[in-house]
């Protein structure tokens, strides 16, 4: 069934058992919404120099947006900013691929569980759900940096 390509086991797992959910102390906080469907996320980033000490979040949304935030937390926390940016860019590329991109080894290594979202990229209405937390993270990071908390 085609649906299974979107709702991969990994995604449903993250949805049902989200990582790092809840708001904790941070250097910057952003609130993003997806006006199409009303998904919302509040996200905070905490930096320790160039290292991502924490990404905490709260919000409401569908399985895809919730799972994506959970994967983000799992992937990015503990990473260096540079590496995190590479991951974010790879994820963006994957999501914008309209189901046309077969992740290669480098991408698989970068994205880990997040490659499971490849199937979502076939559903334009859901791509925004998957990207919501990632855009929020990018924005929060920019704010944290400009506020001089890091680097």
């Amino acid at each position, binding site marked *: 069934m085609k649906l299974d390509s979107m709702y991969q086991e990994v995604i449903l797992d993250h949805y049902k058992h989200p990582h790092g959910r809840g708001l904790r102390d941070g250097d910057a906080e952003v609130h993003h919404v997806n006006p199409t469907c*009303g*998904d919302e996320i509040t996200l905070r980033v905490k930096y320790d120099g160039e290292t991502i000490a924490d990404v905490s979040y709260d919000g409401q949304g*569908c*399985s*895809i947006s919730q799972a994506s935030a959970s994967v983000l937390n799992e992937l990015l926390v503990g990473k260096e900013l540079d590496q995190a940016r590479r991951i974010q860019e790879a994820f963006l590329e994957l999501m914008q691929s309209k189901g046309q991109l077969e992740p290669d080894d480098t991408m698989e290594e970068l994205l880990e569980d997040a490659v499971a979202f490849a199937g979502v990229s076939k559903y334009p209405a859901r791509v925004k*759900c998957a990207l919501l937390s990632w855009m929020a993270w990018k924005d929060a990071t920019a704010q944290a940096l400009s506020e001089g908390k890091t680097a």
Partner: protein
Amino acid sequence: MTDARQGLTGLLDTEAIRKDFPLLDRTVHDGKKIVYLDSAATSQKPRQVLDALNEYYERHNANVHRGVYTIAEEATALYEGARDKVAAFINAPSRNEVIFTKNASESLNLVANMLGWADEPYRVDSDTEIVTTEMEHHSNIVPWQLLSQRTGAKLKWFGITDDGRLDLSDIDEVITEKTKIVTLTLVSNIMGTVNPVEKIIRRAQQVGALVCVDASQAAPHMVLDVQALQADFVAFTGHKMVGPTGIGVLWGRQELLEDLPPFLGGGEMIETVSMHSSTYAPAPHKFEAGTPPIAQAVGLGAAVDYLSAIGMENIHRHEEAITAYAVKRLLEVPDLRIIGPATAEDRGATISFTLGDIHPHDVGQVLDEQGIAVRVGHHCARPVCLRYGIPATTRASFYLYSTPAEVDALVDGLEHVRNFFG
């Protein structure tokens, strides 16, 4: 299921009707026949409307009002003929009270802007108040928020009760001597609630306020008689009533349309223009700047003919039967909660619900895989979602071509959704 269906009376001959709608024959996801349950967002179009569009473009296409040649006269007669049809459809006292816009949103913005730029006694300014409700479509909220911000007028609203009705307990405090305009929907696009507008109109008349009724979800589904309604303005939109996209209507009382200032300026809406000043044509033309949506008006005329031939009472009766059946069957689904009236009384053929804590987005996706098209989200009525503390709903909405079998398909589909996320 079939047992429950047997009691249904008042249904239309949907087998015949569905033959008129080419899209309803479509299949999705490897051959699944589409079950289209999103008519509150936009309706499908019958062959008759598409034929009218083609006939217009292939034989009569010309700009209107200004030509002496044959096809320009034909195009003008078709365009103005569509105005006659719409006027008859809503029982307008005069065809000149029917303004063509691009959609209901433009119609509502038109009212807000007319009042913002009006002279006394209509002028909305910082000493005055605007009244709306928490149940409105964004298109009947945002124009008034903008007007309020730009004039300083205070925006007030009626709240909603737990069972999806307008809370009119404070009607005398909400609508006061300061109120210039009360604007509200006849039928909620998210909950299906049919509102007691007469009561509100009576109160508005007491204080001398104008009343604007958003009939976007009413005109497609029930007899709309603007004289019986006694409102001052009535807005609706073509694409929800088997007409084309790109066409809306504002009906307004003649003397108001005469007194109120224009909104968009341009060709067609003028009497004479010099560089120093201009004078305006009488209504409705005063409010129709530029080349109008000619083909779309003609298409709306054909839509109105189509609906009238079936009969708005018959369509309404059909939808009542389908809605009663749908409410009953949906309430059988475990964990399903209807947002809005949970009975079939005073409600239109639109039902919003939540399903346990499965997000509507996920509900809609899994239903789509089975060919079932429902809408998910806040349906441009986010204040309603806020009111009930939910992020979104799943909404199924029915029309003259909907069948009890489609209700069954939805209920089966929801069972599948529950299993999938179970």
